[in-house]
């Protein structure tokens, strides 16, 4: 790790001020991704602005949505009575991230800002028509993710909270990478009055994506059988040591079937 500055402000505005005073600063949330990157000397920011003191970790019920602060830890989402009641699939997703230690440090905002192609949360954001609230604007999920590790976030823009729409029904099923246990394929299925949304993570070369054909099939018949005849294309899917695009295509269909119950 290269030496760097560390600041822990008490509010979002202080955090923004602090980061602007640095040449190239980084927000530090749970540090589960950022700290290993620093340790391996893959990044050398001028400073770290720790946003854990900025009051960004509340969970609230907004009638049609659940709003979760960016600094809310995976463990808190997994345990939250509010989340479990309104969107149990979201609590299940959070509970299945990493291990206990990771869940007690990793945050929603960090995961979504990072947009790792194998991360779980981005699929929930996309499937649950979430709104990403930043210090300057509110961004719709369909606009937010722009590619592997890429989002619409501008330099020094901070995610403050994310609102997840309450679905009629939803589920998340993950096929873990055997080694890392991140999603090798994760499918978030959400049924709303105006249709079904299916978001796939872990599989796409461009990061998380919605699967139009499965959405159409499930919107007309919310049943695993509706998927049987579908041929899932392997085009644009990730190829690595653990899974070929064809195997990932198979898992996308299989995990989706298992999610539709």
């Amino acid at each position, binding site marked *: 790790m290269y030496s760097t500055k560390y600041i822990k402000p008490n509010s979002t505005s202080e955090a923004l001020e602090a980061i602007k005073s640095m040449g190239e600063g980084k927000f530090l949330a749970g540090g589960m991704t950022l700290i290993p990157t620093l340790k391996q000397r893959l990044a050398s920011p001028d400073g770290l602005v720790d946003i854990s003191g900025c009051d960004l970790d509340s969970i609230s019920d907004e009638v049609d949505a659940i709003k979760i602060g960016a600094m809310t830890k995976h463990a808190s989402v997994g345990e939250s009575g509010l989340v479990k009641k309104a969107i149990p699939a979201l609590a299940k997703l959070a509970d299945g991230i990493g291990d206990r230690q990771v869940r007690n440090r990793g945050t929603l905002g960090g995961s979504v800002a990072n947009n790792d192609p194998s991360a779980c949360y981005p699929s929930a954001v996309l499937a649950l028509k979430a709104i990403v609230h930043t210090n300057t604007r509110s961004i719709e999920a369909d606009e937010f993710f722009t590619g592997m590790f890429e989002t619409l976030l501008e330099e020094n823009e901070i995610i403050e909270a994310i609102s997840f729409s309450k679905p009629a029904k939803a589920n998340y099923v993950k096929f873990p990478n055997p080694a*890392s246990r991140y999603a090798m394929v994760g499918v978030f299925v959400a049924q709303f009055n105006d249709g079904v949304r299916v978001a796939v993570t872990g599989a796409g070369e461009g990061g998380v994506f919605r699967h139009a054909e499965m959405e159409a099939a499930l919107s007309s018949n919310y049943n695993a059988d509706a998927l049987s005849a579908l041929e899932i294309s392997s085009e644009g899917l990730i190829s690595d040591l653990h899974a070929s695009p064809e195997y990932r295509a198979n898992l996308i269909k299989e995990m989706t079937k298992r999610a539709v119950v």
Partner: protein
Amino acid sequence: MNEVTKIDGIGSSVRRTEDKKFLTGKGRYTDDINRPGQVQAYFLRSDVAHAEIKSIDTKAAQSAPGVVGVFTGADIAVDKVGGPICGWVVPCRDGSSTKEPPHPLLAQGKVRFVGDAVAVVVAETMEQAKSAAELIDVDYNELTPVVDFVNADKGAQIHEEVPNNCYFDWELGDEGATNKAIERAAKVVKLSVRNNRLVPNAMEPRSALAEYDSLDESYTLHTTSQNPHLTRLVLAAFMFAIPESKLRVIAPDVGGGFGSKIYVYIEEAVCVWASKKIGRPVKWTADRTQAFLTDCHGRDHVNDVQLALDENNKIIGLRVDTVCNLGAYLSAFSVVVPTILHGTLLSGQYDIPAIYTNVKGMATNTVNVDAYRGAGRPEATYLLERTMETAAKEVGMDPAEFRRINFIPKDAFPYQTQVALQYDIGDYEPHLDKAMEMIDYSNFEKRRAEAAKRGMYRGIGMSSYIEACGLAPSAVVGALGGRVGQWESASVRVNPTGTISVFTGSHSHGQGHATTFAQIVADKLGIPMENVEVIHGDTDKTPFGMGSYGSRSLASGGSAISKAVDKIINKSKKIAAHLLEASEDDIDFKDGKFVVGGTDKEKAFGEIALAAYVPHNYPLETLEPGLEENAFYDPTNFVFPSGTHIAEVEIDPATGVVEVVDWAACDDFGNLVNPMIVEGQVHGGIAQGIGQALLEDAHYDENGQLLTASYMDYCMPRADDLPSFKVGYTNTPCTHNDLGVKGCGEAGAIASPPALINAVIDALSPLGVTDMSMPATPQKVWKAIQESQSVAAE
């Protein structure tokens, strides 16, 4: 009546006395130790697999903040420090010997794998050393890397001294007789298997802390070693040319080895060298990435097998042609593992009248390959037990029955195999029967049918393994090319109050010697275990010993302790005879008391100890005072544990996921000193075997980059990958050591991979699948299912 003291002796499952400190985080590992004035070493490593070094510019690094010194191979060459040596060589088929290229401490002229050390930076802090290393400019002339070891003979030559990249081409057995058996066989079963490459992944990464004392010109090295005395010998005699007395090696608590900490690595030698050069203690600790790149890996074989059967399905011959990958340099035991520890095991539990094997050890641009839990025996067991299962299926016999008719019969021991070993004792049908009973083998088809109703493929597979551990005797080891003795030492010191200090040449890095060895002494002397302390791991304290590997500690080290205790008892009898005014022949030793036979005259062990050290009433004319004895024990043979493991799996055809649903292990380890510790060793061994069979795979790409260099891609077994194991035992006590013990440390890792892969193939056999390579990952299994279905559709 005398009060009976409770003795936690041989056979009792005493809790491990060492665990309190480990479980409360109080272990003291090498990296926990710090010396005043200490500096940190960081190694700049090659990021290319094969290249000539055109130049190294260290100028900028020399003047970087905190830097105390930057050194390259040229500096080592000036001081004429030798590199690590090969501890065992074998003759080649053409009459030549194993080719032993030099392994310089820091690269000289060439780098040969990604991770090869090019320079060392010593600085006040590790971060400063790392930063300075980034300023070193190495200009490489890249050469074509050799990664595919099967075709390594056609690749660019890696060492001048190793033509065709072949370190050795060795053979064992009677080729003519074997080929004849194959020609006249009613059936020849052919199989080609690959033993996948593994990274040892000890929990504690390697670490070294070296200190030079300029007053008496001596060094102290703390290091992560399984055998500190061997480390001292190699460093002193072969690398630095100094008397052993000028180097103290301490291996304090060591967090796992699995073989990877047997050898002397270049890093610890460089720390020793630099500590004198700089005049300050030098510490180095690997991070996990360095562990992946530079710890010796394990396995990595390809074996072509031909098994000849007569018309009654009796084996009449076995031929195995093996090519194995030994990596960039010859590590200490890299040659013995695929030859002596592999070829000699090919008879397994079977009566095979003709065996021949040929092994080619290849050089590649990958890190060195050496012993890893089981070392050679897992590879032998895997190919043999995969072949046995395949043969049984091909001749239409139940795999258990096919094994049974080929077992060496119980009355044939001692049994001389066709591959050098002579098994002293064994009885194989009982552990096969018991394992089958434990897993309810006879009702398996019902379980398969029930699983099929749930859409799952269920399979069962077995493996009846033999293991040879406690390499011995030394004379044979020497005749086979070994350059070390294979005895073990013990020194038993009775303190004046009757407590005992045991100094052992064995080394515990997780095995529980402090408990097991104390049990042996407590049992033999009839004293409480708390009165026995076991000391190991420090060359200034313990007698010269060979350390721990190859499941040798109890059979060799424990036997040495037993011998030393016998000497203590003999001397004590003399003292007792004097004190009790009786003849020595009339003294019986029982339950910690020396009794004059047929009388109630007795002396407790503690009274004897006191008399030995306060010899006021003592036969000083005929007996030396004091009570301390040494023993060096050179076993007369290997010990031969054996057993049968049976695995049951369920496969989800939609995803290819293999779930291990049941496991029965029935082993014959001879007498058990601490059954709980033995069970732990069995569990750990099976877990590693399941790791090899389903999860682990060290993968280099064609450029020689290790793609699985972190836990993001290298898959270790976790608790939820494992079933609850059913563990059982049979017992044929070893005939040639006093304790009747064999070895249990590696058996689980040896037995389990073929049992599991056999089960996977059995599960898929209704689809026509007949082969599956390790690891059987979900993707691979799914693909096999897809392919079998597309074949069926054609």
